[in-house]
């Protein structure tokens, strides 16, 4: 395969493709196995019955969404430090996957909440924090569509991603205090040990799938960027220094 290296990002676009596909396949197989294992082996919950199985997706999705936000924050920080456009594209890829995961967490939380508590929405701290996280991902991605200039977009969204990450622990703490003070029912997610193993394996499987999705999205973003640069070089007709270098 021809190795085209993006000048602006410095990332070879064709490398590591096979490795990430492997990660994706392993993640998918592991997820199927873990789901089957969870569904078949763990006994129906005393209160919730088989409804409890939603947890095997709900909880891993929530965990991995946090991970995605951490990735956004780290990539943003690195962009501000080094100024490589590739880090910005990585942050954006992680944010897209993160939004999907928080959305999934919220939807499953509601589907679970209705039969369990008789209400679609509860102001439970973790669920509420996830909702805030979801809105921050959305705001981040909307900001990106509102800014045309690539450098400005990268710089602004890096700052927004970073400040958002600072806010996550504060949101979580404040929402938790708010709940305990108002003495709502505590979270029913106390676990019997027979549930923990399937939960962990599912979390790992979903993490692998997320890594694959982020890598795939990132790679396509780099390819778009590289194509842009090639178009630029054509548009500039070999003008000196017109290749998009950022020395």
């Amino acid at each position, binding site marked *: 395969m021809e190795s085209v290296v993006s000048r602006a990002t410095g990332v070879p676009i064709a490398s590591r493709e096979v490795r990430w596909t492997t990660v994706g396949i392993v993640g998918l197989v592991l997820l199927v196995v873990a789901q089957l294992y969870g569904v078949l082996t763990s006994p129906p919950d005393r209160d919730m019955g088989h409804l409890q199985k939603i947890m095997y997706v709900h909880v891993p999705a929530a965990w991995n969404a946090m991970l995605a936000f951490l990735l956004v924050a780290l990539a943003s920080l690195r962009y501000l430090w080094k100024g490589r456009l590739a880090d910005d594209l990585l942050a954006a890829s992680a944010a897209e996957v993160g939004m999907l995961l928080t959305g999934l967490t919220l939807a499953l939380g509601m589907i679970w909440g209705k039969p369990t508590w008789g209400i679609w929405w509860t102001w439970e701290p973790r669920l509420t924090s996830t909702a805030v996280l979801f809105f921050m991902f959305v705001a981040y991605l909307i900001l990106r569509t509102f800014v045309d200039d690539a450098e400005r977009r990268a710089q602004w969204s890096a700052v927004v991603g970073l400040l958002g990450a600072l806010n996550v622990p504060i949101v979580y703490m404040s929402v938790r205090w708010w709940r305990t003070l108002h003495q709502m029912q505590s979270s029913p997610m106390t676990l019997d040990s027979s549930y923990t193993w399937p939960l962990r394996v599912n979390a790992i499987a979903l993490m692998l799938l997320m890594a694959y999705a982020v890598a795939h999205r990132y790679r396509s973003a780099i390819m778009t960027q590289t194509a842009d640069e090639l178009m*630029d070089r054509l548009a*500039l007709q070999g*003008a000196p*220094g*017109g290749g998009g270098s950022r020395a």
Partner: protein
Amino acid sequence: MPATRLPLNHGAGATALVAEGVTRRYGRRWALRGANISVAPGEVVGLEGHNGSGKSTLLRVFSTLIRPTSGKAWVLGEDVRERADWVRGQIALMTYHPGLYDDLTARENLVFAATMLGRDAAGIDAALDRVGLLRDADERVRTFSSGMQRRLSLARLLMQRPRVLLLDEPYNSLDRQGVALVNEVVAEVVRGSEGGAALIVLHDRQSAGALLDRVEVMFQGRIEGQAEPALPAAVDLLAELAS
């Protein structure tokens, strides 16, 4: 990548302005497509070209306001990206916007500028007098005509004590005395400071009079040639390039 580096000696004798393969894109549109220019100390260079040929963008690159997408630019031998803050202390940019606060008086605008520049307010009256606005110093800028606003931004430019002038159509909406005033200030800066120079975007070459050492012509984001300052305008060259 350019194969050669321009020899740049720092300090005395350094080139006033150099651009090397500077490109700049806005979204999908290229405002600069590899512009090269060099202005020596003591030179006053005019910049002509059609609307959208990249003249204003080039001035903004030199001023540090716009980063080049690629290529490099130096002011007095220093890279505009790496030493942006230093460069800002050496240049003065005049754009088609007066860049003033409408609800402040002329004097208040200059006091604000002086504070931001870390200077005291001592020179303000002199600057206002110089541009002929001393009588209107305590009127709000909102009530000024566009020519008066332009004079006021010229007064601010005087307070900056720049070494290199970047002027974008400075003669717009100025009367005969205003034009003479601009030329006076340009001559003063260029001859009066070490390494002083001026790059002036023009449509009407006659206003600059004998001040111009040469005229560079821009076309579609590049410097495409020089014109004789004595001729009324670069019409011929532009017509030739367009065809």
